[in-house]
């Protein structure tokens, strides 16, 4: 090595440290953005993302010792379409605090932070030097998708947390020398996969990835995991089906077969790559390296399985959240790949190792730029946005690089991420007051207004639509109530009811007023006067 090369290497090392600190600082900024958004949502007492209210209803039903998978043909026509674990975790809080979105959103936030911590831990365990581990964990939180779904009262991030923990637990199973410790790790991994699957059905892909990885490393172990999961998961499944007279099967499996739109999946795939490409490319390159030159790690197998789940995002009702497992796998694999690259380069002091030193932080800096999102009107981000001349392209001053400058985004990308305002809270309170004052039951597309007004939550519209699309819903009783004009008030937001229900609403109810909350128009309908055709 010449003196010039040595000098170049030394400078590259200095630049590496400086740039990695810069990347860490930027990604830490996204953690602050995430926590600001989470704190805002936790204080917001109404539905924010479509479906949050019905997840709260599931929690409340469990807290009363009732199943959420019910016959939708009888009043109150309600059923859940999700597995129970997230809602069960929230039950103690429901006993303490009653109907509130705060604890579910806090649980979602915590799950996101734990998943990020698990990613950082795995990179560090793999030998990730210095800042690479925290940078990998923070990169997960910095993703636009993870940002906007993390703090919701939805079960998705809890599933990703359990998946990540399971993968990290099982990664080094075969390297564990101590038999007792290995057995404990195996059971822990299996339990975490079961937890993920009973949080959301999409975790099936992670289960398959874990089985495939263990089978590759030691076929008997892979078969043991497959049999263990089939027996335990299948046993719980059978018990739930029997205990709910088949409603568990009908509502969570049969009703979830939906129309597939390849354009939606393609749009979301492009968006995922566009935002996360700086990490996707190194992760995929490392996957190819392991496949052809090294040995496959569980992280590589997981990324492949997670990408397959991402392709299901073209399903009706699916969205960018279907890529969240792939984002976790990408951050993990990119971190581990960079770790290996640095380890292979260390001590060589060649031009190639100097370039590797420079490349790695630049990838994370590029990523930090690609996922840019922040509130532009809220301190302390407002001054930062003004300095960078970042102009909002979403509601309430949010800038989100997942959208075009005009605010457009591909179908399936959730139109959320903005902070709520006092005006939104006032609009929600007005809606609750109207629901409380209405005579008889109220049919609302969001559950919060009825919950806070102390009225029955009637129906879960998207589940009715899921069932109707599969020819599994007749709706006679609900249609009769609509014809009888039994509902004192109807509140529509997106019109996700089956066509026959919407038609009956149009025939028997008339528009009354529109109240805007949170960027959505809530259209209120009152019963048409008697004898009106």
């Amino acid at each position, binding site marked *: 090595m010449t003196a010039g090369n040595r000098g170049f290497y030394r400078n590259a090392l200095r630049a590496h440290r400086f740039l990695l600190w810069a990347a860490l600082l930027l990604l830490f900024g996204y953690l602050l953005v995430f926590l600001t958004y989470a704190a805002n949502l936790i204080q917001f007492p109404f539905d924010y993302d479509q479906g949050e209210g019905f997840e709260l209803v599931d929690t409340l039903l469990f807290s009363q010792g009732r199943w959420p998978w019910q016959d939708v043909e009888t009043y109150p026509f309600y059923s859940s379409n999700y597995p129970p674990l997230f809602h069960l975790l929230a039950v103690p809080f429901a006993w303490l605090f009653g109907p509130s979105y705060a604890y579910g959103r806090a649980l979602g936030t915590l799950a996101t932070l734990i998943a990020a911590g698990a990613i950082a831990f795995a990179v560090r365990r793999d030998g990730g030097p210095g800042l690479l581990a925290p940078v990998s964990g923070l990169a997960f939180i910095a993703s636009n998708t993870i940002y906007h779904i993390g703090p919701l009262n939805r079960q998705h991030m809890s599933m990703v947390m359990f998946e990540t923990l399971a993968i990290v637990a099982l990664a080094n199973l075969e390297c564990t020398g101590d038999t007792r410790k290995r057995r404990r790790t195996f059971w822990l991994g299996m339990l975490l996969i079961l937890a993920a699957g009973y949080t959301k059905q999409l975790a099936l892909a992670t289960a398959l990835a874990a089985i495939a990885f263990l089978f*590759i*490393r*030691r076929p008997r172990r892979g078969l043991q995991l497959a049999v263990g999961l089939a027996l335990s998961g299948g046993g719980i499944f059978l018990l739930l089906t029997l205990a709910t007279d088949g409603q568990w099967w009908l509502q969570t499996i049969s009703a979830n077969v939906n129309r597939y739109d*390849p354009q939606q999946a393609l749009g979301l795939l492009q968006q995922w790559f566009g935002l996360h490409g700086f990490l996707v490319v190194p992760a995929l390159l490392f996957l190819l390296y392991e496949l052809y030159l090294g040995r496959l790690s569980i992280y590589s197998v997981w990324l492949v399985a997670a990408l397959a789940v991402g392709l299901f995002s073209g399903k009706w009702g699916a969205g960018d959240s279907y890529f969240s497992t792939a984002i976790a796998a990408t951050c993990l694999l990119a971190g581990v790949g960079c770790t290996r690259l640095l380890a292979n380069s260390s001590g060589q002091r060649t031009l190639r190792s100097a370039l590797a030193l420079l490349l790695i932080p630049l990838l994370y800096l590029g990523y930090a730029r690609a996922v840019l999102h922040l509130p532009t009107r809220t301190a302390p981000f407002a001054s930062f946005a003004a300095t960078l001349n970042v102009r909002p392209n979403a509601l309430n001053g949010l800038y989100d690089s997942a959208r075009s400058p005009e605010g457009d985004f591909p179908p399936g990308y959730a139109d959320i991420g903005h902070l709520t305002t006092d005006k939104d809270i006032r609009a929600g309170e007005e809606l609750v007051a109207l629901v409380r004052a209405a005579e008889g039951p109220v049919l609302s597309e969001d559950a919060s207004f009825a919950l806070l007004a102390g009225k029955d939550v009637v129906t879960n519209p998207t589940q009715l639509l899921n069932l109707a699309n599969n020819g599994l819903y007749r709706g006679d009783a609900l249609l009769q109530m609509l014809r009888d004009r039994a509902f004192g008030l109807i509140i529509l937001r997106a019109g996700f009811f089956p066509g026959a229900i919407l038609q009956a609403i149009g025939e028997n109810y008339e528009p009354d007023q529109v109240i805007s909350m949170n960027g959505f128009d809530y259209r209120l309908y009152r019963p048409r006067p008697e004898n009106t055709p």
Partner: protein
Amino acid sequence: MWERPLSKRQLGLLLVLTGSVGFIGVLAIDLLDAGREGGLGPAQSLALGAMFLIVIVGLSLLPLGDRPA
């Protein structure tokens, strides 16, 4: 056999087998479900593409021999 890691060639064979069976299975949906109309749907086409890719990856692993996968 059940205690030793798969070799690259074994993994390749397994992928070729999985992809081929999957490919035929996806095509067979139309043959078995007589009520379906309109040929291959978008989800089916995607699944066929994925199965084809699995076969190609499997074939590419075959020459790599007994190195552990």
